[in-house]
């Protein structure tokens, strides 16, 4: 019966409707990417030009007797010698006049100068694609992009190692050991999600200030080695799907509990481990709050998020530079997502849907 429905004209119409609506919203949803690319390729004049299209464009010009002439779209029937034509044509203006102006035809220069009876101010102008990469060059050196990339990448790598290491051990403890109080501890772990950050941040910041860690990466990196609720939960759910019979077989062969984790559980958990890896890399790339409060005094250590917001404070009036900077900040996570998308999807489904 379902097979039949596919060929039903009503369901074809529905397919077109549903897919069309989904695609339409997607275009609106993703349009800021186009805005970013378009704006970052414009120069200052193009951004402020009146009546300019949304893509990077400038008015076409033509070289004539050593001068740059602006182009206009002219109805040909207003020009001497072509009164019968109904076409519009791109002509270059030689001499501007109030009621009539002198033009040349860039495609037919032999025709020479001729007069058209049009008010040039009211004419449409042909826009030509014209893009510049100067904004990227300028932003690259203004924000010291290589240094930001290095800082952000190191943050991502070190903290991901910390999260993988600690959360694997903790999730194994919660999923494979039975002892009184275990379930209560697990609930306490989950409940830490509800704790507002500032309750713990204020004393922690005060303490790190006292021991001289403010201005270094240590307050941001060290806590990642002590596990967190989301990643422990994700790994524990995954570990629980691995049959315990495998543990028991290894145990009979004399494997220690740590050996079982290393040789039995981990080799089977690579999808969950990869999900955590890509999540955490994106998280680190994205993180703004931690670096903002601990590193704002140390410019050389900034990751890209903090540098970008400061950059906006200084060059906020130059949208092309800001959009170029935003593009430079998001291009690496975007590539990571394109190559690893299935791990993202699987990881989210485990945390959100599992009990």
């Amino acid at each position: 019966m379902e097979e039949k429905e596919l060929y039903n004209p009503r369901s074809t119409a529905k397919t077109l409707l549903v897919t069309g609506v989904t695609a339409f919203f997607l275009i609106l949803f993703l349009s800021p990417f186009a805005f970013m690319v378009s704006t970052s390729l414009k120069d200052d004049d193009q951004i402020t030009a009146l009546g300019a299209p949304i893509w990077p464009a400038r008015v076409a010009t033509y070289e004539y007797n050593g001068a740059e002439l602006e182009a206009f779209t002219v109805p040909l029937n207003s020009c001497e010698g072509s009164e019968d034509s109904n076409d519009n044509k791109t002509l270059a203006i030689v001499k501007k006049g109030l009621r009539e102006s002198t033009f040349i035809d860039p495609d037919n220069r032999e025709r020479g100068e001729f007069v058209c009876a049009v008010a040039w101010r009211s004419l449409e102008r042909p826009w030509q694609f014209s893009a510049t990469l100067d904004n990227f060059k300028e932003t690259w050196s203004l924000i010291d992009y290589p240094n930001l990339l290095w800082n952000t990448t190191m943050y991502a790598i070190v903290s991901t190692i910390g999260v993988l290491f600690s959360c694997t051990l903790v999730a194994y403890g919660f999923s494979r050991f039975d002892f009184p109080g275990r379930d209560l501890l697990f609930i306490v772990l989950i409940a830490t999600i509800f704790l507002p950050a500032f309750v713990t941040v204020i004393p922690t910041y005060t303490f790190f200030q006292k021991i001289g860690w403010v201005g270094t990466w240590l307050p941001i990196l060290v806590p990642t080695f002590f596990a967190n609720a989301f990643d422990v939960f994700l790994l524990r759910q995954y570990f629980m799907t691995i049959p315990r019979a495998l543990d028991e077989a290894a145990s009979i062969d004399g494997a220690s509990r740590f050996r079982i984790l290393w040789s039995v559980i981990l080799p089977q958990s690579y999808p969950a481990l990869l999900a955590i890896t890509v999540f955490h890399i994106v998280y680190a790339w994205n993180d703004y709050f931690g670096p903002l409060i601990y590193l704002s005094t140390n410019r050389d250590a900034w990751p890209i998020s903090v540098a970008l917001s400061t950059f906006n404070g200084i060059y906020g009036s130059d949208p092309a530079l800001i959009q170029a900077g935003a593009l430079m900040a998001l291009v690496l996570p975007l590539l990571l997502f394109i190559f690893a998308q299935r791990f993202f999807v699987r990881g989210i489904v485990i945390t959100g849907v599992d009990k």
Partner: protein
Amino acid sequence: MFEELNKGLPSIPSLGSYRRLSPIKKHEMRQGLLFISPWLLGFVLFTVLPIIASLIFSFLDLSITDGILSTPQWAGLDNYIQMFQDPQIWTASGGTIGSIWITIRFGLIALPVGILLPLGIAILMNSPYLKGSMFFRSAYYMPYIVPFVAAIFLWGGMLNPETGWINRGLLWLGLPRDMLPGWANDINWVYPAYVIMGIWGIGNAMLIMLAGLQGVPTELYDAAKVDGANIWHTFRNVTFPMISPVLFYNLVLGVVGIFQFFLVPLVVNNGTGRPGGATMFFNLYLYKTFFTFQNMSYGSAMAWLLFAMIMIVTVFLFGTARYWVYYAGEGRS
């Protein structure tokens, strides 16, 4: 994720229950605790001790000046008395309303969007009439991974009253120029502007809701069809109860997020509260007290107020869960 919390707390084990364990079980417990020790240690160092410390801070007079911690003075209830009289927090009406009301007002706009929009897209994604659903799923999720600050600048550019594409689109649709919203600089439009800027964060909720929708057994839909249920009845009596756990999950995380909302106004309006004080959210005021003015004790008192409000609201939400959240595999109690 919250099903275990909804089942109620397990009992706290007594010391006696440990003594009654067999030697093998005691060994198992020691090993288990060893494996979870990274979290236990981190929990004590970075959660329990700081919570106690911030409670103590809130009864002191403590600040940092030029990187040097002041000598703590006992202040008793002074911080709390000041806090409960602070017009920046509580003013309910007039020109500039208090930060609590700003947070609540914004939440009333942002929360329904944050639940209904991803749900709507997930319903589209789950439609049998959608071609290329795998592509759409990835494409709708993708902006979620864009770094927060970059996403703010993209949407901020889109919402620029003069050069942004949104106002250009509204002009093209025929809206008169003097009726165009001023978005982030316009006191009437700044909350919708923030909601739009946050729209790229829906990817996660959308995927979770989609997985919830896909988990509804098709027999239930067939049974509803046989019973002659229309679309609304099917949604109300089949889809909604079956996806209520994922709705609950997103609702709770959304509420907790709204109470702590401050990074967007910090980046977009520089944390100044502009336009007209409308964006001085409670958590932003707290951030400024703690970080800009480095008043650790008043900040701690505010953090505890925030903590208390979040606790009350989450406990309330968990209390309502028994009436509307349905976990398959148990009877509705």
